[in-house]
């Protein structure tokens, strides 16, 4: 069996499972946030069960509109807080305690290799970075999980991405995943799991692996997974409690397709709006002037992302007329970035550094775009209207491209400005 089949077989108490089979699986951990939580709670009440199945296995994180920007949002957060208290939910990251849910889930040790995790958010797939099977569900599915601890899942076919060679300097995990999505298309992995392996993936740290798994859903994937190695084990041991069994694909495991990618020739990539699969090298997008550059989110708001951006930005200024919005992915990331002097580099360059959270990613608060504006963003979606006005344009790129573009005022290959 491959890693996906092994995890789903274990979770559903079956000896063996195969793609297409529907299993009734036991969930190890479930996650809700301030935006999907309220509806999940309503549906939970509709089901009519009094207590959640396990208050220790539910994680609640506030991140989408924090601190709340409207009375409505504040009211919804209040409602979730009350639910947390009523149900005795143990792991609750209120404002100032956590950050973006998908950053928090990994750094606070809520995910372990081999786990089955569901979250009421599509980017739950991020946790595959630690060798877990993690997938996003809607509010009602989540309510059913909170009530029963179980979920039905169709065992997905698996696509394997064998990534050879090593990435060059200033070419990062984001470029790899953008390139892969460009290659297979926005529904190239629909209903399927994407498994990333090979030399380049081994070299990439947990932060970069999280970026890759995070964006697997942009190709429609049900899960993105990196098979666990020593890096995974070390990361999890430092954070998670209890034992775990890191499962890997058997040598004779079946994948419905294997793709080969050469990392060593890759250049920094950009996804052209409004689709995530219209991907080109940064050097080929032409002269695209920007109004805003955005660094943050569950895709690229981690420490490695802030490090590479600040390395490029050090001693330089954000171009006059450009806004550079930096939102550290979590309190922990923020704290460590402060300690390493990264935040100072951002501030001196003229960036607006905001409190951890989703920031302008979803077009609700802090940094939304006006009609006709252009943003280069380290996030994962460039859909029409995603960051505010439906007439704004969002180009997706790596933290390195975002930082380089903030300096020049147009979309820029970081190798053109770094060290100059």
């Amino acid at each position: 069996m491959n890693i996906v089949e092994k995890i789903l077989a274990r979770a559903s108490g079956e000896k063996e499972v195969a793609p297409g089979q529907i299993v009734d699986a036991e969930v190890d951990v479930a996650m809700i946030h301030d935006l999907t939580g309220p509806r999940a709670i309503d549906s939970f009440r509709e089901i009519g069960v009094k207590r959640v199945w396990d208050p220790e296995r539910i994680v609640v994180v506030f991140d989408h509109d924090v601190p709340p920007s409207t009375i409505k949002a504040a009211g919804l957060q209040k409602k979730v807080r009350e639910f947390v208290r009523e149900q005795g939910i143990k792991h609750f990251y209120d404002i100032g305690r956590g950050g973006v849910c998908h950053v928090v889930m990994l750094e606070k040790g809520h995910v372990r290799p081999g786990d089955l995790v569901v979250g009421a958010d599509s980017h739950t797939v991020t946790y595959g970075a630690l060798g877990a099977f993690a997938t996003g569900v809607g509010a009602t599915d989540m309510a059913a999980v909170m009530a029963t601890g179980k979920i039905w899942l169709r065992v997905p076919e698996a696509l394997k991405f064998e990534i050879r060679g090593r990435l060059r300097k200033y070419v990062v995990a984001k470029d790899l995943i953008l390139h892969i999505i460009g290659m297979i298309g926005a529904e190239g992995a629909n209903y399927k799991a994407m498994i990333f392996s090979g030399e380049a993936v081994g070299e990439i740290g947990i932060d970069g692996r999280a970026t890759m798994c995070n964006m697997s859903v942009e190709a429609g994937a049900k899960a993105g997974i990196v098979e666990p190695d020593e890096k995974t084990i070390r990361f999890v041991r430092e954070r998670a409690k209890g034992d775990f069994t890191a499962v890997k694909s058997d040598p004779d495991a079946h994948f419905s397709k294997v793709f080969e990618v050469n990392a060593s020739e890759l250049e920094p990539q950009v996804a052209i709006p409004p689709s995530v699969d219209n991907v080109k090298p940064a050097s080929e997008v032409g002269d695209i002037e920007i109004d805003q550059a955005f660094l943050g989110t569950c895709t690229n708001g981690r420490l490695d992302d802030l490090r590479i951006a600040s390395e490029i930005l050090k001693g330089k200024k954000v171009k006059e007329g450009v806004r550079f919005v930096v939102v550290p992915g979590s309190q922990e990331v923020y704290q460590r970035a402060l300690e390493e002097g990264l935040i100072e580099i951002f501030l001196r360059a003229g960036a607006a550094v905001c409190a951890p959270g989703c920031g302008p990613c979803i077009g609700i608060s802090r940094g939304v775009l006006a009609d006709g504006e252009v943003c280069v963003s380290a996030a994962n979606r460039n859909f029409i209207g995603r960051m505010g006005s439906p007439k704004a344009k969002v180009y997706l790129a790596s933290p390195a491209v975002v930082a380089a573009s903030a300096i020049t005022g147009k979309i820029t290959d970081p190798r053109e400005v770094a060290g100059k």
Partner: protein
Amino acid sequence: MKIRGRAIIYGDNIDTDIIIPGRYLVLQDPEELAKHAMEGIDPSFPEKARMGAIIVAGKNFGCGSSREEAPVALKHANTKCVIAESFARIFYRNAINIGLPIIEASIRNSVEEGDELVVDVISGMIVNETKGITLKGNPLPSLAIEIISAGGLTRYIRKKLGLE
């Protein structure tokens, strides 16, 4: 289970930010959400759908976020059924869970905006009454039919747990 409505046609990759932009998610009331359904590409949708709509779309309908508000907004804007060449998986589950019937079928070449369609959700057969033709879609899996027939996942679970 037969459903009737007028066809409204869209293209590929209709994402959840198009169906209901993020800024409206604080509007928890389904009727309020419905007023903004499809606002990303077609602000006239709620008006067009008032008499009962069947959306006919291309590939990867509902891609993007896990927001259940997407099918909820469509349903409460009086969308009777969504027919698409393919669906993104979370949208697919969400639609079934909230009781919005959806059918996989490639019929865009045989339907024009405003055509009167009758869909049999169980068999997957689609009759275009305006054009007098019968088209074939994939029937829903049996578990999905059970959930939709129960009135959505919460009712389905209530039954399973013996709460109703």
